[in-house]
């Protein structure tokens, strides 16, 4: 009967694990850090509790059946019961009621989470009052454009906390899916059309995780699908405004200071600038933005979305990107010696819009 005990306890474990919350706070949907994730979490808890109720009922009947109705003698012939209308009506009606309880909040949340009207209302300048971010997903990297602020950045999404941020999502090559588990559910980035939704980043929760949340690609998109991560810097509004201002201040590529960095800049201008911009203006057409924008590269939290941000890792990445992200589009596009890579690294580390 040990087996029965285990099954009986499973839902209990499930409930405990759910309620206590688990996983890492910067990644887990069970530790919601924003209004959207919170609403979704509430819905999860509601549905889980209803379902645990169902499981308990089934488990009780199941255990009784297993204990009481084992065959005692080979000759016993039980009564051939046809059925029971009362019972059958009961277990038809009760589930319907339970589902209604679940359906109402489901439908209401579906509509509220899809409400992006503030991102459509243009003010006199032809811009929106709400913060809008255009997300463009590419094979294994993300681009974030701020149309109102007229800047763009890559890989590290920077957002203000405690206000609704509206996202327009599209993919430039194959379909991806934009997901920041701790902040809210995902939405696909289609190749055909723009998808829209909003998220909200909780200031306190952001504080607890050092202002960094993890984002992921949730739709199979090729060999390095697993590595198509991005980071979210959720900053208080004032700090966010500062960051925007310092980004906007970069009109020309920043000149490198040290000798090696200057050499690196030259190499960069010869080999890399075709794909990677180092100015944040969003004026270049999309087709020409073939690689991540590197304006604020020095402040990135991770290299290629997955490696710790240090010179060693940048060099490894530049030397052989294929070994880190199989199938990426940078492999084989340039040919640099070790010294040149050192110089470029030096240059890149200096690309910071803020100290």
């Amino acid at each position, binding site marked *: 009967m040990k087996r029965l005990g285990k099954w009986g306890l499973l839902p209990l474990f*499930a409930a405990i694990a759910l309620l206590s919350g*688990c996983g890492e706070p910067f990644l887990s949907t069970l530790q919601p850090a924003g209004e959207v994730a919170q609403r979704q979490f509430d819905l999860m808890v509601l549905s889980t509790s209803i379902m645990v109720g169902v499981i308990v009922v089934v488990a009780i009947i199941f255990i009784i*059946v297993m204990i009481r*109705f084992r065959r005692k003698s080979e000759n016993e012939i039980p009564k051939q019961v*046809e059925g029971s209308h009362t019972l059958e009506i009961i277990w038809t009606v009760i*589930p319907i009621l339970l589902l209604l309880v679940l359906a109402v909040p*489901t439908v209401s949340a579906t509509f509220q989470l899809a409400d992006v009207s503030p991102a459509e209302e243009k003010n006199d300048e032809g811009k929106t009052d709400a913060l809008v971010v255009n997300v463009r997903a590419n094979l294994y990297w993300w681009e974030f454009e701020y149309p109102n602020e007229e800047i763009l950045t890559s890989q590290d999404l920077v957002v203000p906390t405690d206000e609704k941020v509206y996202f327009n999502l599209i993919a430039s090559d194959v379909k991806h899916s934009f997901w920041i588990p701790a902040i809210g559910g995902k939405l696909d980035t289609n*190749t055909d059309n723009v998808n829209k939704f909003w998220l909200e980043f909780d200031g306190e929760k952001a504080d607890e995780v050092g202002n960094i949340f993890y984002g992921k690609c949730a739709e199979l998109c090729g060999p390095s699908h697993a590595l198509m*991560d991005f980071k979210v810097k959720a900053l208080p509004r004032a700090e966010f405004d500062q960051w925007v201002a310092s980004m906007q201040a970069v009109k020309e590529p920043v000149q490198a200071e040290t000798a090696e960095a200057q050499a690196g800049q030259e190499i960069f201008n010869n080999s890399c600038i075709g794909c990677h911009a180092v100015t944040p203006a969003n004026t270049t057409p999309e087709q020409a933005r073939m690689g991540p924008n590197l304006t604020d590269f020095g402040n990135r939290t991770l290299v290629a979305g997955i490696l710790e941000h240090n010179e060693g890792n940048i060099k490894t990445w530049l030397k052989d990107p294929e070994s880190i992200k199989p199938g990426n589009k940078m492999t084989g596009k340039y040919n640099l010696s070790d010294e040149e890579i050192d110089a470029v690294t030096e240059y890149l580390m200096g690309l910071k819009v803020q100290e």
Partner: protein
Amino acid sequence: MSTNAQKKGFGAVLWDYLTTVDHKKIAILYLIAGGIFFILGGLEAMIIRIQLAIPDNNFVSAGFYNEVLTMHGTTMIFLAAMPLLFAFMNAVVPLQIGARDVAFPFLNSLGFWLFFFGGVFLNLSWFLGGAPDAGWTSYASLSLASEGHGIDFYSLGLQISGFGTLIAGINFLVTIINMRAPGMTYMRMPLFTWTTFVASALILFAFPALTVGIFFLTFDRLFGSNFFDPTMGGNTVIWEHLFWIFGHPEVYILILPAFGIFSDIISTFSRKRLFGYSSMVFATVLIGFLGFMVWAHHMFTTGLGPIANAIFAVATMAIAVPTGIKIFNWLFTMWGGSIKFTTPMLYAVAFVPSFVMGGVTGVMLAAAPADYQYHDSYFVVAHFHYVIIGGVVLSLLAATHFYWPKMFGTMLNEFLGKITFWLFLIGFHLTFFIQHFLGLMGMPRRIFTFLPNQGLEIGNLVSSIGAFFMAVATIILLINIVITSVKNVKVGNDPWGDGRTLEWAIASPPPYYNFKQLPLVRGLDPYWIEKMEGKKEMTPAEPLGDIHMPNGSFIPFMISLGLFIAAFGAMYRLDYGWGLPVLIIGLVITFGSMFVRSIKDDHGYHIHKEELMDDDDNKGVKA
């Protein structure tokens, strides 16, 4: 042709199976082929779990991993689960309704060979430049971008085997409507027959959508069309819709027969008629019907908009009601019964709570806004493995033990059977229960590796350990099969002693013409009714007479072979000069064989009364 099994050479046996149109032999073919693909799919699953056992693992490369995960899903759904179900449908359903054979014996064989060649074609991709790597869903933007011929193997292979499935579906529908024995009314059909019927109807309406979708994919990749190319006006969401219009009913095509198998097993080993038979039938039909209204719940995050999402969310929840009815009916069939825990019954008993777990997460997934979190995460992986392993695979293992004596005339070893069961069940829960939490903790599905320090290590390790239990269980099952076949201890009509339905009233294995005289069915569970009245066999409904039998044919093999060859031609047409001629040769073989079939009269042959009576004398004692 003689009825007595004679010692035949290997060549003769092989030829016999290549040309057979006998539903029992085709069942064995499906069982063998499906079993081999099941093991292949299992190996692929093991590669996945080994790769994911620890973070940053490099057991396999990223590209190869995507091929493995794609082939695991595709193989398990199309080449293992469905054919194995067809194996038991073929073996059992005609017997359950007291039919001589299926309605279209020739098409039955054609269906098998199409499936077989499609499956072989798909798996040859491993040796010919790489397997498909866009997931079993093969979403259009990725599958168009995928290099090499992997996706072409997918589309052409599935197209061929899909035709086979469609044919099998129509065949079962007609068999069940037209070939029932006297007295076998619709409301006396065993649940496995009913679920086969509904699943076949689902096949009939679901597979054409896949056929069309796959045609588009093939045309886009090989013939220059633009269905899914947004720059030319195309739209990738069309693929998603077509795929899921097929794909969701497909899930029910798999699970409904599993429900049927378990209904029969539970009622047999509880020695009770199925509780609420009519509501079980009603629930089956309702699930089949609703199965076509809910496909977009696989696309909640595609961006269909809140109206569509809300409608499909509520429709999806509705399916929980008939499913719930079934669960309680099973429980109350056992309630008051006399339960004997044979191996098949153990699977059936374990199925109930396992499937409830899969069912409740299904309802949770139906809540669209919450699904934005679950979708494409390991939560979904856990959910559908709970449904497909906890439902379909457990039913296949149960049916293997339950119907083995009927198919082969020998009993699988019960002790080994129970070991298989416990290892498999423990392994299954160990592997997949924790994956719910991995998903909620932010692990997307279809990732070839995960990074350390994101809280995902322990869960993945536990999951991988569980997978090994299931692998060991499968190996023990194989050992059991070998031992049983070598020992070859023959059993009688009703080896379990509790048989209720018609298939247990006939010898194990049944003679090639099935019932000598069609049985008279006097109620639900006809054999049980006769047994309760102290009779040993069914009352015949007709006098002993000549039996009309279909001729064997090699043409189904040739038709399928032609398509198999044509598929290579279609695929390599753009690369090599010989592609087009090969495509044409293949089609000529196929259509030529069809032509031969249609102009050559095939009236079958008759087994004469005298022969049948001789047969009686030879075999009468044994049963």
